[in-house]
């Protein structure tokens, strides 16, 4: 088991317009002026992102995940896990703040674009390492993050300690456990020899207690 923290950078994943609109609270179809505005926003921010991930392997015997049921379920039968932290950088936070002053609609769209960017980065990273490990006969399970189900947000501190996030990818944690840049994710992925996937909720919504969430997909 390697305890080195590795860093990877990625090219921009393709923009998923449907997801951006969903994050912006637009659950139906967008009209022309919204599409135009979104197009402007994407053109303006396309270049500002930097897609960085730092990660390391974690042995199953390390008492990292505590007694969280969510973690147990997701790591069931796994030989080890990979923990990672991903960020798309601070520039999008600056754009959101800038437009909060002059255009709330654009600020909302930048917010949504940022959310979609970091999710897409996590997907790209997970697909990347899943491919790597598959060569060794290891299969990735669904990723999960502090704050999912009963896996406590307090675990952020341990992710940061284990991954050296500020130094590796410029990601910091506030006293109230919020990450800055805000468009960032920490998560764990289990790896197993069992190739058939267990029945899992693809979105993680099933583990979430907020039953009235507008974005809930179960």
């Amino acid at each position, binding site marked *: 088991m390697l305890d080195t923290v590795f860093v990877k950078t990625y090219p921009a994943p393709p923009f998923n317009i449907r997801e951006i609109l969903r994050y912006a*609270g*637009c659950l139906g179809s967008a009209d022309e002026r919204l599409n135009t505005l979104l197009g402007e926003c994407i053109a303006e921010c396309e270049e500002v992102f930097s897609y960085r991930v730092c990660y390391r392997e974690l042995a199953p015997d390390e008492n990292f995940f505590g007694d969280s049921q969510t973690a147990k379920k997701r790591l069931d039968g796994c030989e080890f896990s990979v923990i990672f932290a991903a960020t798309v950088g601070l520039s999008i936070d*600056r754009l959101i703040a800038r437009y909060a002053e002059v255009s*709330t609609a654009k600020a909302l769209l930048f917010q949504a674009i940022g959310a979609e960017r970091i999710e897409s980065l996590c997907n790209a990273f997970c697909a990347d390492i899943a491919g790597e490990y598959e060569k060794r006969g290891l299969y990735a399970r669904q990723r999960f993050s502090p704050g999912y189900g009963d896996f406590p947000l307090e675990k952020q501190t341990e992710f940061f300690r284990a991954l050296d996030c500020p130094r590796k990818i410029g990601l*910091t*944690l*506030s006293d109230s456990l919020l990450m800055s840049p805000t468009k960032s994710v920490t998560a764990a992925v289990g790896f197993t020899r069992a190739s058939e996937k267990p029945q899992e909720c693809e979105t993680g919504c099933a583990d979430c207690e907020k039953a009235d969430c507008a974005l809930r997909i179960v």
Partner: protein
Amino acid sequence: MKIREFLQNHIVYLDGGTGTLLQEAGLPLGELPERWNLSHAEEIRKIHRAYYNAGSNVVCTNTFGANRLKFSASELDGIIRAAVENAREAGNSSNGKQEKFVALDIGPTGKLLKPYGDFDFEEAVKVFAETVKLGVKYGADLVFIETMSDSLETKAAVLAVKENSDLPVFVSCAYGADGKLMTGANPAAMVAMLEGLGVDALGVNCSVGPAQMRGVVKELLEKASVPVLVKPNAGLPIADGDTTRYDIDENAFAEYIAEFLKQGARLVGGCCGTTPAYIAAVVEATKGIQPLPVTDKNITCVSSYTHAVEFSKPVLIGERINPTGKKRFKQALIERDTGYILGEGIAQQEKGAHILDVNVGLPDIDEKTELPRYIEELQAVIDLPLQIDTSDPAAMERAMRRYNGKPLVNSVNGKRESMSAVFPLVKKYGGVVVALTLDEKGIPDTADGRVEIAKKIVAEAEKYGISKKDMIVDPLAMTVSADPNAARTTLQALREIKTQLGVHTSLGVSNVSFGLPVREVVNAAFFALALENGLSAAILNPNSAEMLKTYYAYLALTAQDENCAEYIRFATETLPKFTPATTAVSSVSPQTQGETPLQTAIVKGLKELASSACEETLKTSSALDTVEKEIVPALDLVGKAYEEKRAYLPQLLMSAEAAKAAFEKIRLHLLKTGGKTEKKCKIVLATVKGDIHDIGKNIVGTLLENYGFEVIDLGRDVAPETIVEKTQETGAPLVGLSALMTTTVPSMAETIALLRARVPSVKILVGGAVLTEEYAKKIGADGYGKDGMASVRFAESLYKDLCKK
């Protein structure tokens, strides 16, 4: 020999990646390495000794994270004492014959500073200061600030060194593969700021290997007038079975370092993965290389947290953030309408200003607190360098201290009092200072008189150690309608100052036309003349197309615009922004019977059109009628569509913005006619302490303003006490609180409890992603805003009872 002296004519060999060796020595992941200074002193000494044996002149103590955020005062004292002792002992017992120094190593805190993080600037200075004081106490030879990834935190660390020691200070930053710090600064920006703060050497370490560092090193060497240091990683880590190795070996590494030395770098070493063998290889491979002299690059520049602006070609300074002669701006200052002021800044940037002047001086404004606050707010959303414009030295100092970069400072003049107040600040914090050619006797009528004052000011600045390159002389543009020779005198002074003194110059160009009709014509012509007579920077209104036309044409005509590229971009991209919306009001067909153009513009969310339609409407209707019969019904239409899920949040907000544009016209109209806007009632809004997400709160704020409420937005991460204080101070009957995370909901509950205790009559509305109706009730809120419109409806349902006068 002291390190400063040694540095003058030697190559300085630094050490390598101590952290890598600590891991090899068995430091478990997660354990704080600084504790090993005490618990494993011999291992630490062995590592330091190995570097000295390899030929390092400077070894950094094992104190990268030794600060008060991680250790108690007494433990920190012990750690730093042991750390300096360990390095000193290693030097003494090493077989190396070279000069040896011990550097107190300081790394970043791992916290991000405000406004994007939660760490206060002065707190950061304090944390670094404690480490520095201990380093001084235990006898370090210098301070080595390294692996910094944020310009403002770097500034805090350097200030802490400067304010608590006389030790030499080297500063090294971690630039990513994109050549920038994590928070955006490029090498030129860092050079500007760090030289301004008076560091002894600066450079780059960590993040990448030597090959990817080439661009950054080249830029540092081009810009820096102090010695440049280079400490790359041994390339990238590669997993190799159950071990990790780096992809560049010591010999290849040494070749890269030799290349850097030949280009002019003066201090070299390594970072992650560079063992003593690497340093030995570097020393061996570079034995015969003569150190290149460090030369003054004589660059006049200011910087922001992303980039530097050089005065090598004429620079545009936007003058709009200034209340002088601007009713609307004064009103915004008095109402603390930060949004309006930031909007003025953003608009100037969009028009192509390079630097923004910031003046918030009004009799009712406490500049000491307000100027630094606006500087911070502006820097949160605008990446242009700023010009700190105040006559109050206390306000100037506070603003310069907090400023993220190297500011332009406006101004000093030939009065003794002014020079003795301003020069020490420029010396301490760094900056380029504008010198006005006036003194105790006023403004000389002749060009010669102004040149004399300029000479006097430049000479006095030199006594403080401020060189000419950090001065810009403003020979003062006077009004041509009052004195026919005013412009000629100024132009002559400009020419002579530039040629005789060799300093850069600036002018507040538009003063020249005061009292004349169609001032832009006179201003533009004067601007062209001034440029031809050596003007380096113009303070002007970037919203004036005439001035910009002159500027870009001048650059193209004087061979300062390669292929006329800037002119072409200006003509095709910027210039169209000066002409208002092309759609005529009448061309928008109403969607429903009876709908007016203004209503249509709002419903469709067309900002420019709403603005012009409102102006049109105000010609025939009163302000009150325009609001009540046009804007409010249009907003209701959209609000209803949203609630019935026929429109979504982005559309709702586009309409809200269109309405806001219309309201701005009404505000201007009332300022002109002397009327007043009727507000429903005051509402205090805040994102609670610990939480930095404020998009939800901003949406609610925009909508509430649309519906006629006076929103007092306290921002994000606001302490309960502040919320209570502002509620009491403003007498707002309603408070809206936002929290996004489960971890910050307790802070919301705490705020509610404090409000209940201190302001029992106040109504409290809460909202945020993790909240539910039940939870809102549980923590004692009066209302739960599940979305923006719900919040508006709640406020509307209450305000009549709440706002009985």
